[in-house]
């Protein structure tokens, strides 16, 4: 697979620190967005720990079956969870810290996503934007249960409550998603500082209009800031240029990337 990719993070307009962390390993086909939480800079620590531990633990997925790759993804996120949770017990000022994690690995012509929390992965294919991941949030559960409409969910006072988090409990169960990629696909990974400020349709418009992943990322972040920039904003954009070529994206991050 031949891809071009870009990623960036921005503190936003309102917050004083950036608790988001991300990993962009274009050659290895590994991408992570983590949105940390917890005061006194603990959020930054949690999101950075998640990114480092997950990328190290994943290693190469080359030659693995889907089931094996999924199991590797689960165990990498659970290891990060355990390490962060241990720190919340040991260090008083880290109590309550945790992070979301949206981890995407590209291999062969496929993608694998490990998901905890409310950062999101989207796929733009032939002009249609599809949300690949489902938020682990109170409002999403209420929508699934038929108690809220998606419109009500967006404006609900509990829309900041997430129900799964890396590092908040002893263990965590990530959701796993698989899918095929096609030439021309554009993938977006983003923290809620982006998806909370821009509606899906606005994301789709920018992703369709901007060929270059870097200008696309910068435009999204600028737009989110222009609308108020209420939270840290992180975006990674990956464009699939060719699925047959064999130069990049074949091999996920080597250990200790």
């Amino acid at each position: 697979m031949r891809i071009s990719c870009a990623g960036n993070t921005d503190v936003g307009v309102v917050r004083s620190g950036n608790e988001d962390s991300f990993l962009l390993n274009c050659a290895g086909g590994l991408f992570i967005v983590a949105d940390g939480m917890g005061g006194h800079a603990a959020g930054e620590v949690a999101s950075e720990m998640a990114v480092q531990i997950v990328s190290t633990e994943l290693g190469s997925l080359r030659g693995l079956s889907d089931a094996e790759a999924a199991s590797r993804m689960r165990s990498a996120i659970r290891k990060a969870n355990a390490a962060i949770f241990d720190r919340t017990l040991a260090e008083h000022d880290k109590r309550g810290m945790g992070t979301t994690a949206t981890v995407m690995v590209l291999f062969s012509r496929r993608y694998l996503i490990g998901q905890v929390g409310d950062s999101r992965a989207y796929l733009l294919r032939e002009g249609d934007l599809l949300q690949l991941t489902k938020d682990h949030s109170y409002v999403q559960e209420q929508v699934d249960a038929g108690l809220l409409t998606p419109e009500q969910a967006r404006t609900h006072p509990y829309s900041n409550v997430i129900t799964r988090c890396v590092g908040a409990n002893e263990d965590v169960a990530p959701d796993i998603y698989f899918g095929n990629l096609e030439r021309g696909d554009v993938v977006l990974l983003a923290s809620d500082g982006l998806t909370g400020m821009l509606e899906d349709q606005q994301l789709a418009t920018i992703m369709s209009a901007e060929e270059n992943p870097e200008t696309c990322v910068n435009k999204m972040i600028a737009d989110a800031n222009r609308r108020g920039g209420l939270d840290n904003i992180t975006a990674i954009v990956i464009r699939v240029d060719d699925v047959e070529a064999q130069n990049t994206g074949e091999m996920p991050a080597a250990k200790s990337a």
Partner: protein
Amino acid sequence: MELEYGGRRYPVAAGGLVIGSGPDASLSVHAPAVRPRHALVRLLKPGMAVVTAEEPGAEILVNGSRLGPDPTPLMHGDKLVIGGAQIAVSDPDRAGATRIVGAVPPPPGTPKARLVSLADGREYPVEDVPFVIGRDATSHLVVESDLVSRRHAEILRGPGGDSLLDLSGNGVWVNGRRITAPVLLREGDLVRIGETEFRYHLPEAGAAPAGAGYRLGDTIVGLQAVRRPPPMPEPAPAAAAEPLATLLVKRGQRKGERIPVRSPVVNIGRGEFNDIALPDASISANHVKLQLKEGIWVLTDLGSTNGSRVDGEAVQGDIALSPGVQITLGEVLLLFEPRDRGLKRVDTTAAIVQPSLPGAEATSRRTILILALAGVLLLAGFLLLR
């Protein structure tokens, strides 16, 4: 408040304004069915007037509905019909007449929407809602064509944005498709009224979307407790499920009806887009929000014109509702009846916002211990009494 009739304006004075065919009517309407003193319009407070029939049987229509004997509030944009004559109600404060006001920044979160005519490029800001589109001269946007109804369509504003409602006989098209239900308008949508097309625009870099402030507040982890509704008896649709609460209409158009509240957040208002729509002229398009918050039902007035009261007390900000209270929205009276099952669900709802910190479990164990102790003491006391 003013009434507009036959190109003239009639201010509603403090003493009231009589409409009729007689000599002491300030607004004269000469038609066969019009009584000498037909109707009286009184000013209750600035921006709010009520109309009453002065004689039994004097027919008055407000926005097409025939009035009963009770005084009926009139609001800006309402249309009175008396003996076939149409009288428009206008509030100069809301009608865009020039006035001098202090510099007040526009409220945040309300992007300025507009319709642009593709025929002549004229722009129509969608400010007052409901924003009326029609042939009638008092519409916000007048479209002159035989294909267009007097009141052809309305734009209503809800939390998710503006929605377009077809009130016409000949139909309304959005992006080439005839609408059969209210449609949420999006930037760039093409709206066709009669033969004229309009482009709906929201400014490109507007405010944050509704709710962004909540969503992007500090993220909190809740306990992972999936609150699926209890298994429903087979393919029983939502209608069969037990509601969380009911509102019994004691006064108003839907009088006698028991309206179910099926979700922990419902918006109530005159607009069709509300979870509970109350088609009463005294109710604002967005009137109140009723919400189950951490186990307590809370009512919030959404800046309604005629206000809301709970057991007679005016609602300012949030007000908690006890079972059986009477809620007055404009002129509509509702009896609030929460259901036990709803309250049980509340407990689980409340649980999600407790941080799942290591100490929490210990605390709840202690609570159970105290409860058990209290139970034993009660039982002992009971036995002693016997």
